[in-house]
């Protein structure tokens, strides 16, 4: 049970990483192919990426939750 729980958490980490990498690829394609006005899309993707790291990797909800 203990190790199964650990495996679930490790898999979640991999899913978050895969999402972040996909975002980074889209960001790169948008940034290199659109010459003007790409910044709103880039900002949006950066905010989503930062949120994913803050939420899943840094566990920011711990601040307002008693126990995770």
């Amino acid at each position: 049970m203990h190790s199964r729980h650990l495996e679930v958490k490790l898999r979640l980490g991999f899913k978050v990483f895969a999402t972040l990498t996909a975002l980074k690829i889209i960001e790169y394609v948008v940034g290199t192919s659109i010459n003007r006005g790409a910044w709103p899309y880039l900002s949006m993707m950066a905010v989503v990426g930062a949120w994913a790291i803050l939420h899943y990797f840094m566990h920011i909800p711990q601040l307002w939750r008693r126990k995770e």
Partner: protein
Amino acid sequence: MNMVTSITTDWEDRGAINRVGLWLFILSDSFLFIAIIFTRFYLQGVQRPSELNQLLGFVISVVLLLSSLFAYRGETAAAYGDIRRFRYNILATIGLGSLFLVGVGVEWAEGFRFFPPSTGFGTVFFTLTGFHAFHVFTGILGLLLILLPGQKKRLGEGSYWGVEAMVKYWHFVDVAWVFIFPTLYLVS
């Protein structure tokens, strides 16, 4: 009786208090990054030199993201008392962080040739990447510290604050890069 209860509660809350302290530190540090990012737009608008190696910027971004994954795995393993997995993952994080620094070094060598620090873009580029690289370097030192043999005796559920703090710091460095990469390499 009340005093005893209060002391026990204080002790239990220590982890939560530590966390708040760390988050306040992270918040204050992020203001410096925000200020330098705004300087980029103030000095240069959205202009960037064509010689900027965007592909290298992209590759080192993925390297840093991957290091964050390993840091997360290391922290999770420490929380479950899996010392072997913790050590491997933190070592991988350190390796990838060092690789990131090498990438920044290559980028700096190119930068000195095409947009030296005396130019507007060079000023922002070297300040921002230099400041960030210093954070990565101190992060590596911190991660090495939690790998010290004496530390592993203290690991296990509810007693891995040192690991948690260092890994959170490492993720913060990653969050900063999530904004720095598009600001320097992609916005045009």
